[in-house]
Each structure stands twice: as structure tokens, then as C-alpha cells.
């Protein structure tokens, strides 16, 4: 290579390596879990679980708390306590206290996503008490890696389709879109473990209600196709009595069945634009996994009857859920979004849908196909 070429390369390398602000991994704390709570008088409490690499043999993960009127002030306090900077670009989970969620989350989310270097993929969740409480209790347990335990619960459950995956991006997207409301998982600390106990429903950015986790799939099925979700349903024994293979175990009138939803999809159609009547179609292809009473499913008639009972049960639960949603005036399934796609001349606004949603009427049609019921009768 010529002298000139060498000179240019050397100069470039010197400039590039010398003139950029360095951020050494060992000198910074990498935040993994971030908790936001409201304390009294407009103060925010922040809790962070972070990794600090460097000293060998030491557990890299630790916890710190801070307080301030803004999130940045809280983070600054945490930096002062620690003596090094905490970096927020790798936050995996952002946890909010219940009170903070009831107050409204959009300011925190906007603060989080304002910066281009913020991670848009971070998971969001609500703690049923305060975020600090949940994180510190879990951190206090031996043999628990907080950094993995908390995001894992949400990750695993969203991959199993139990709950929809809620990230910073899609929460904001659903919040800003009129006609659909965002949701968030609720984590609680029970018996020395953190559990996913409910799904929080938001009206705008404020927590408005919650539904148990096993009903979360009614919302999930309308957002995406569900593949591989196990669901338990309570069915009445009477219509299926003639297919019983042996006497019922007790005098109970109901029994339970556990099935695997191989493929579940949901559709919403606006049937009547003037009266706002929606038709919801839910289609499930299931494999029966377990029954608490021995109902023989080998005959086609038995399968048909079983399918009808499951359809009735799901339809009833779904309609109960819808009336709860109308009472709270939240629309996590997106009925308003369907209306918006057919509304011409003026776009649907948030306030317009809030006025209309409590008076909307629905009809639900559930179709269940039992693909197989296993090898035993």
C-alpha cells in the first residue's frame, strides 16, 4: 500500500477511536428491570435491578431505588447512590405500581420512548401492590435471579398465548389508536413466588379493571391467531349423561375439561352501522386432553354434543366478559377499530367511541371442532 493510503488509514483510525465518547461495560450499570411507583405529593419512586460486571466472583445483579419528581431525577438519585451511571438502553421489563397505573401511564411511557436510544421492545407489566414491593421481595429470596424470573413469567406466558405480548411499542400504539384499549399483565407476589394473576384493562392509559388470566385468551384470540394454548372449561354434566362410561364420581352437576387449542381465531364484523351491532365469530380447533368425568368421546354423536356444550360455555363466558367491559367502558378487543375501518367522512375519535361503546350490541358465534380426543375413550 502506498504511503498516502497508509497515512489516511492511520489518521482515520486515530480519529474514530479517539474522538468518540467511550462507555465501558464494566464502569456502567446495565438496568434490566425498572419499577415506577407513585409516592405521596407528586413524587415518583424508581426501583432498578441492574447488572454490574467487573469484580469476579461477585453476583453481577443488584438493586437500587431512587426518588424524584421526574423519572430522570429518580434515575439521577440512583446514580448518586451507586457512584456510577445506570444505562437504560437494555431494560427488559418496566413494572408499574397499581396506583401509578390507575393514575395514568402515558407520561412515563412517553418519557421512556422519547429518546432514540431507548429500547422499544421492553415488556410492560403492573404489580398488584407497588413495583418496589414486588421487586424487593423477589430479590430478597435466595436462589432467585430477579433479572430472569420476572421477564420470564411474561415471556413464557405470551409465547404460550396465555396473554398478548405487551411491549412499549404496542401499548402506545393501542393507546393512541381510537377504538381499542391496551392491556397489561398483572404480577403479584404469592407464596414466595411471583405469579401472573390477572390481565389489567386500561381505559386510555388508566387502569380501569382486571380479568382473571384464564379469560385473557378471549382478548388474545381477537388480536392474533392462537396456536397451542391449554384452556380449562366447566361443562354441565346433564346433557352428556348418556355418553358417560361409568357412574359420575360425585353428585356434582358440572365437570371440567382441559383442551389444547390447536388453532384459534376470532373475527369481528360490523353488521349494522346505524345501530352499531357487531357479530363476533370465534373458531377453535381443539384437542381434548383431560376430563374429570369419563365421558366417552368415541361416537360422533358424543363428540357433537361435547362440541356444542363447549361452544355454549365459551359463548356464555364471552358474553359475560363483554357486559363487564361495557360496564367499565373499555374496549380491549377492538370493536371500535372495526367500526373505524368502515366509518367514512369523519375519522372516529376516542371520545366518540367512549360515548357509543356502552350502547353497542353484540352477537357471538362460537365454533369448536374437536380434532381428536386422545387414545383412550
Amino acid at each position, binding site marked *: 500500500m502506498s504511503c498516502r493510503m497508509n497515512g489516511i488509514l492511520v489518521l482515520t483510525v486515530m480519529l474514530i477511536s479517539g474522538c*468518540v*465518547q467511550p462507555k465501558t461495560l464494566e464502569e456502567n450499570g446495565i438496568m434490566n428491570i425498572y419499577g415506577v411507583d407513585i409516592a405521596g405529593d407528586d413524587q415518583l419512586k424508581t426501583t432498578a435491578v441492574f447488572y454490574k460486571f467487573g469484580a469476579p466472583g461477585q453476583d453481577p445483579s443488584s438493586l437500587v431505588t431512587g426518588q424524584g419528581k421526574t423519572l430522570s431525577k429518580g434515575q439521577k438519585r440512583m446514580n448518586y447512590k451507586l457512584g456510577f451511571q445506570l444505562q437504560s438502553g*437494555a431494560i427488559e421489563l418496566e413494572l408499574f405500581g397499581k396506583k401509578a397505573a390507575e393514575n395514568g401511564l402515558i407520561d412515563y411511557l412517553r418519557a421512556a420512548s422519547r429518546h*432514540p436510544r431507548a429500547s422499544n421492545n421492553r415488556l410492560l407489566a403492573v404489580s398488584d401492590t407497588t413495583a418496589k414491593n414486588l421487586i424487593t421481595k423477589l430479590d430478597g429470596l435466595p436462589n432467585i435471579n430477579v433479572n430472569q424470573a420476572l421477564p420470564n413469567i411474561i415471556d413464557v406466558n405470551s409465547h404460550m398465548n396465555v396473554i398478548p405480548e405487551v411491549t412499549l411499542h404496542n401499548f*402506545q*400504539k393501542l393507546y*393512541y389508536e381510537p377504538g381499542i384499549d391496551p392491556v397489561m399483565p398483572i404480577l403479584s407476589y404469592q407464596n414466595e413466588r411471583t405469579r401472573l394473576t390477572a390481565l389489567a384493562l386500561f381505559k386510555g392509559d388508566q387502569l380501569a379493571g382486571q380479568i382473571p388470566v384464564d379469560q385473557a385468551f378471549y382478548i388474545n384470540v381477537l388480536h392474533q391467531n392462537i396456536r397451542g394454548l391449554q384452556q380449562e372449561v366447566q361443562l354441565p354434566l346433564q346433557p352428556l349423561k348418556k355418553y358417560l362410561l361409568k357412574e359420575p364420581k360425585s353428585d356434582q352437576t358440572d365437570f371440567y375439561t382441559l383442551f389444547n387449542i390447536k388453532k384459534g381465531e376470532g373475527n369481528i364484523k360490523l353488521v349494522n352501522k346505524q345501530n352499531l351491532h357487531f357479530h363476533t365469530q370465534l373458531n377453535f380447533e381443539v384437542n381434548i386432553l383431560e376430563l374429570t368425568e369419563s365421558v366417552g368421546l368415541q361416537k360422533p354423536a358424543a363428540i357433537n354434543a361435547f362440541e356444542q356444550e363447549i361452544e355454549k360455555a365459551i359463548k356464555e363466558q364471552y358474553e359475560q366478559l363483554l357486559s363487564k367491559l361495557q360496564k367499565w367502558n373499555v374496549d380491549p378487543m*377492538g370493536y371500535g377499530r372495526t367500526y373505524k375501518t368502515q366509518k367514512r367522512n369523519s*375519522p372516529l375519535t376516542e371520545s366518540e367511541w367512549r360515548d357509543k361503546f356502552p350502547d353497542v350490541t353484540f352477537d357471538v358465534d362460537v365454533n369448536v371442532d374437536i380434532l381428536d380426543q386422545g387414545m383412550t375413550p
Partner: protein
Amino acid sequence: MDINLKVKQGLRIRAFYLFFIMSGIQIGVGVMGTPKYIFLDAQQDSWISVLMAYAAMLIVLWVMLLILKSYDNADILGIQVDIFGTWIGKLLGTVYMLYFAFVLLVVLVTYIDVVQLFIFPQINTWLLGFLLLSLVVYCVAGGLRSIVGVVFLFFILSHWLLLLLAKPISLIDISNYQPVWQASMIDLLKGAKSTTFTFTGFEIIFWIYPFIRNKNQVWRPIFLGATWSAGIILLNTLIVIGYFSATQARTIEWSVLSLFKIVELPFIARFDFIVVAEWMMITLPTMMLLMWAITQGMKRLYHVPKRITLYAAALIFLVVCGFIDEHHLIMALNNQANSIAFWIIFVYPLALLPIVKLKKAWQSRSKKGAKR
């Protein structure tokens, strides 16, 4: 000044490379943030505005080729001198050149701003300007053939970024595009006008035409190059409309770069750092072609040797770019360049064509008269 250029055979390039030149100069910094500006006018029908701007661009390209084919081997500078006379022709040529210099400055400071925002907040503006300009100087000093070679290579080396868009595409929401045809014609046209700044760059055809070896095959690579860049802009606009909600699409500044934020691979957690760095390969061809046009213009109009223009212009840009580091100022410059570009690139060739045709008709008539 010669109206028709005499270009040595060894310096000519094949028409095939026009595809890469067209795409290379059109896909630049504009692509990163344009969907927001189109969305402000046309909302969920922005993709229709992009298609309208594409149609307008094809018409203007065809008109440009008609103008160029009326002469033996002239570029726009020669044509302007021929039509308007020496003084006005040179003045118009100087205006064209200054426009290129302005666009080059805007591209440079916009890219530096994006790097400072996304990757290195503390980095010195002058340093980045120096690095980029030294690359541009190094390549332009090699002449048109080395520039076209770089454009060709960087085109191929940078298009893998499109594959990363698979993740945002999987998260698109179809209801974001509905109801279709809601925007009025005026809004769609306004959106189309906002798209034009992203499409600018094809005026380089006016300058490069004399250097093409096989001029009879010029239309196909130009058409394909324009379609390719329009396709990429259309794809980006469609993904931004589908991936973001309406309020987000209206407010997020660098929407296309934000699309890459959720891309995660096992070996790299956040791809947007890589994308912004890779974007240099998309910006450099634009800057190089513009710098070449400036040196070419100075040589043709004022007989200043290319080397002197190159180093002097690079020094001036380096000094000026250091003072432009405020985001609002950069956005204001972008808007200004957008307004000027619309007139120079879209309106001017349409106005020039009848004048050229008239002149040619008058010339052939007077020749016939002289023959008799």
C-alpha cells in the same frame, strides 16, 4: 463554452450503471423520515400519494430525455447556454450548481444529526463532517468512473437492510389502512408534493448524459432505477402506516429508523445502531454524485480545474457543517431544500421542453431556408 461535450471514449460509462446511479442518488437521507411528512397530509392514503409522485417523476424523466436527445452530446449547462445565451445560460448553470451544493450540505448535516441522535451524542460535528467529506473527496478525485463503481458496490452492499423489515411487516395492522380513499384529492396532491424531496436526485441525468456510451439504451435503466427507489419508498411508507398508530406516524421524527428498533437477532440485540451506521453506505453515493456535479459545473462554466473545486468545496462544507448542529435548523434547511427542489427538478424541465423544441424547430427551419 462548448454546448456539446467531447468525452474521451475511456471515460464513458455504460447505460446499465444508470440504474445504480438513479437508485443510489434517490435513496438517501430522505427515506429515513419522509413517511411522517406524507402522513401529515394524506394520512392512511399516503401510499396513494407516493404512487402519484412516482407517476409525476416518470413523466419528468421522459421530458428530460426528450430535451437531452435534441442535442448531440450536451448536458444541461450546454443546453441552457444554447437556449438562453452565454450570460443567462451560465447564470442558470451557476444556480443549478448552488442548488446541488445546498442539497449536499443538507444531506451531510442531516446524516450527522441522525448519527448524533441515535449512536454517539457527544461526537463532534466537525469530526463526522471531516470523515464523510474526506471519503467523498477521495472518491470524487478518482473521476466519474470511480464514483460509479462505488455507487454500484454500495448499492449491493446496503440492500440487505430491506430483509430486516420482515419483523415490522409481521406486526402490521391492516385496519390502519382503512377506510381507504378518505383523503381528498388536494390532500393527496399535497402528500405527493411532500414525497418529491425524497425522489429528487434524478436531475443528475441532466449532467451525466454526455458520459453515457450507449445512449439509445438509456430509458430502460433510468425507468427501472426510478421504479426501484419509488418501490422502496412505497414499501417504507406502507410499513410505517401499518406498524404505527396514526398519532405516532404523525409525530415520530425518524419513522423508518424506528422500524428497525424492534429487530433483534441472537448476536445483536439492537439493530438500529447497525442500521444507522450502514446508512452511511446509502448516503455516500448521494454525496459523491452531487460533489462530482459541482466540480463538473465549475469546470464547464468557469474553467476551474476539478481538483481545486473539490478541495475548496470540501473545506467550505466542513466549516459550514460545524455550525449547523441544531435539529430545528436542520429541519428548516430540509424544508427549504424541499421547496426549491420541487421547482428546479419537477417544474423546470417541463417548462424547458417547449422552449427547446421551439428552438430546434426554428433552427431546422432557418437551416432549410439557408439551404434554399
